[in-house]
């Protein structure tokens, strides 16, 4: 917080402390209307144990950036390094939680969470014990033998989170994991993520379009512009830790939300105008 009581402009994490570095990332897509730059020269660093959120309007390239950092998209310019090692595909140090429901419906909660442990050949008894630990961590003890189809959307997202955490990634990468949930569930799950992040000191990069969620959880929020997606501003969130969803009632929280919204509003309006222009060009069906 600055002396004037205004939220502070953020700075990049010290590269020496950075566990994740994305350097000059550019992503172009070929479309029938010509090439589109989805991500334009984005650089970011995340320090060990830090919680960084990337926020931007729809269509700004957030999910593209998520795929680049997660190694799922390879046709990009720029470099992603994890603990100094340049990565060119999915990396064992990065665990990903996706926006869409991604549990395996044919596996029980226990088997879903034990999945990454099964891949590394951990003996059954040991992986069961390990999986139970992560199931308890996300607050789903008692549901080990249920199938995802028997759980609510929020519970299924917690299973996905537990499955990713079970692989013990150095960096947790989440793409709008609570986007499909209602606001109350989202706030409560935010609490759960915060609690886990603080308990495990888990380095986390969250992609979101929800300002409340970003401010509630993050140490820093990186605001992106509408297409082409660039870094507009990085905001340091100096709210005290440990945090819970109760922080949303504080004045400072409100000021952070207002500041980020003032940056986002312009970009979101630009995005809306762009979409309307595109819709007008489309012949009516």
């Amino acid at each position, binding site marked *: 917080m600055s002396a004037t009581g205004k939220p502070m402009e953020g700075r990049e994490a010290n590269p020496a402390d950075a566990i994740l570095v994305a350097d000059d990332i550019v992503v172009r897509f070929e479309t029938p209307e010509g090439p589109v730059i989805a991500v334009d020269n984005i650089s970011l660093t995340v320090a060990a144990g830090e919680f960084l959120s990337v926020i931007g309007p729809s269509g700004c390239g957030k999910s593209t950036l998520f795929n680049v950092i997660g190694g*799922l998209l390879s046709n990009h310019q720029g470099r992603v390094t994890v603990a100094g090692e340049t990565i060119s595909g*999915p990396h064992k140090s*990065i665990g*990903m939680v*996706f926006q*869409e429901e*991604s549990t*395996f419906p*044919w596996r029980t909660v226990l088997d879903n969470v034990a999945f990454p442990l099964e891949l590394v050949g951990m003996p059954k008894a040991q992986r069961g014990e390990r999986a139970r630990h992560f199931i308890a961590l996300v607050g789903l003890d008692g549901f080990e033998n249920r199938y995802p189809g028997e759980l609510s959307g929020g519970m299924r997202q917690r299973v996905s989170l537990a499955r990713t955490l079970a*692989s013990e990634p150095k960096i947790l990468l989440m793409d709008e994991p609570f986007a499909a949930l209602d606001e109350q569930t989202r706030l409560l799950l935010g609490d759960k993520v915060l609690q886990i992040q603080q308990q495990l000191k888990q380095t986390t990069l969250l992609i979101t379009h929800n300002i409340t969620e970003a401010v509630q959880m993050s140490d820093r929020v990186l605001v992106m512009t509408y297409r082409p997606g660039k870094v507009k501003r990085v905001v340091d969130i100096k709210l005290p830790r440990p945090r819970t969803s109760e922080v949303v009632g504080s004045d400072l929280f409100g000021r952070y939300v207002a500041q980020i919204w003032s940056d986002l509003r312009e970009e979101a309006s630009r995005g809306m105008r762009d979409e309307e222009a595109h819709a007008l060009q489309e012949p009516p069906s």
Partner: protein
Amino acid sequence: MSAPAYSHRLLAPPVVGLGALILFFLAVEALIRGGVINRFIVPPPSEIIASFERVIVEEDILNRFLLTATECLTAGVMLTVCGVTGGVLMQRYQLLQRACETWVAAMASAPIVLMYPLFMVIFGRSAWTIIMIGFIAALPPVILKTIEGISGTRRVLINVGRSFNLTPRQLFWKIQFPAALPTIFVGIRLGLIFALINVVGVEFLINFGGLGQLINELAERYDLAGTYAAICFVILVSVLFFMSLEKAERWLRPVD
């Protein structure tokens, strides 16, 4: 849920199903006795029920039933193994899929059963002629549904696999194949229907084997009640296969 409510929920569907069937038979019986339906085309259900004992005792129904069921089972196992493997290969090799998918789809509507003379030349007047016709006629839906199931695996599940650094083999066996199982089972169900129709049809046509041959013989004797009773045993084969298939699916995919 209370115990009576639970047992009510469990019992209601079979009771309603059985009740509807009995009502249907009573209506048919009434229409025949009233002269609306010609009894020389459709025998009264009471006569069909009365003929069961005769068909069971005099017509060696158990062996015929087992023979038709074995032919269906053999064709079913063959079409599951070959159909699923074929579908997987076609989905995996795009050239193969582009080259063959249309032909496989066209084969689904081809009246393979009319080629029985060719099969008799190759396999003789034997159970293998019946099995092979049942197998080939039933193959297309299994292949096509396998392709559809594997291709339709949700992108996010593939991405989960990729994020865990799965090899292509692991990705297939641990994600794509289990995700495709419900669709593959739809194909196998359709395939089994095609196989059963063709097996009984060819038994009827070449007058060889199990229930199809019996239906042929009873029809030639103009024993209409016996013919319909024998058809009931074909339905029983079908019911047994579908119940087994449902159990297999529940074992592989307990809850969707």
